[in-house]
């Protein structure tokens, strides 16, 4: 989603209209930013933004907090790949449960917003199995991790439908 928000701004700087995906992402981002307590991005996205030109990237970095990887994030991501998620998607989904906000000392997020409709559909379709597998894993983790939850996965289109 952040990529498309970034690209929407690139289009504006050039005086070009955004693509549908970019407009959808930017509108969703604006709405979510207006209602959410905090917006998070993954460490990877933060690192990529830090390499981009500050005019575009600095405001996005300022408005979001990068999540760190809590212990067991990759373990959960590997379990998710068993449900036919790519490694890249599995990591993002695992951030939803095991992403660590070191400032507030909280773990996980309520929802992941994505422009990837197929990812959201696949997550929804396999959700019951994923939930069982998640419970099986979490029950064997140290007590501190009993608070971890599965996030919702929402498409930008779904966000716009509730605006």
């Amino acid at each position: 989603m952040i990529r498309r928000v970034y690209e929407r701004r690139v289009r504006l700087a050039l005086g070009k209209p955004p693509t549908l995906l970019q407009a959808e992402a930017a509108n969703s981002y604006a709405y979510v930013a207006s209602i959410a307590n905090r917006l998070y991005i993954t460490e990877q996205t933060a690192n990529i933004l830090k390499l981009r030109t500050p005019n575009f990237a600095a405001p996005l970095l300022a408005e979001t907090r990068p999540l760190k990887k809590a212990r067991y994030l990759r373990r959960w991501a590997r379990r998710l790949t068993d449900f036919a998620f790519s490694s890249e998607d599995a990591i993002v989904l695992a951030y939803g449960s095991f992403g660590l906000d070191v400032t507030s000392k909280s773990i996980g997020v309520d929802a992941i917003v994505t422009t990837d409709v197929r990812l959201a559909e696949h997550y929804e379709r396999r959700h019951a199995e994923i939930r069982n597998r998640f419970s099986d894993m979490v029950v064997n983790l140290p007590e501190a991790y009993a608070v971890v939850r599965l996030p919702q996965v929402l498409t930008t289109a779904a966000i716009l439908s509730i605006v």
Partner: protein
Amino acid sequence: MEKLTVDAEGKIIIPPEVIQKRGLQPGDELTLVESAEGLLVYDGGIDAKTLAWWNRLDDTQRLLAEDDARHYESLSEQERDALWKQEADSVEIEAESDELDFPTN
């Protein structure tokens, strides 16, 4: 969320209160989005965040942004994909050394 009605000619009627609330004028363009969830209609103008970002840039910053934007737009889709996939995290056990304990100390 509002319900819209398609009339006999295939036109969508937007309730007057929505038109008023959104400040829509005759001739304004709306975007119809076909998505997996269905059809979405939204006003395709600049969202508040993007507009605020643009308005914060001074003339010099806008010129620099335009230069950077031109460079970004000159990249192929594959090159942009690669750019946004840099430093992708591995799911392998060997990579777990950077994971932090929760709760943090």
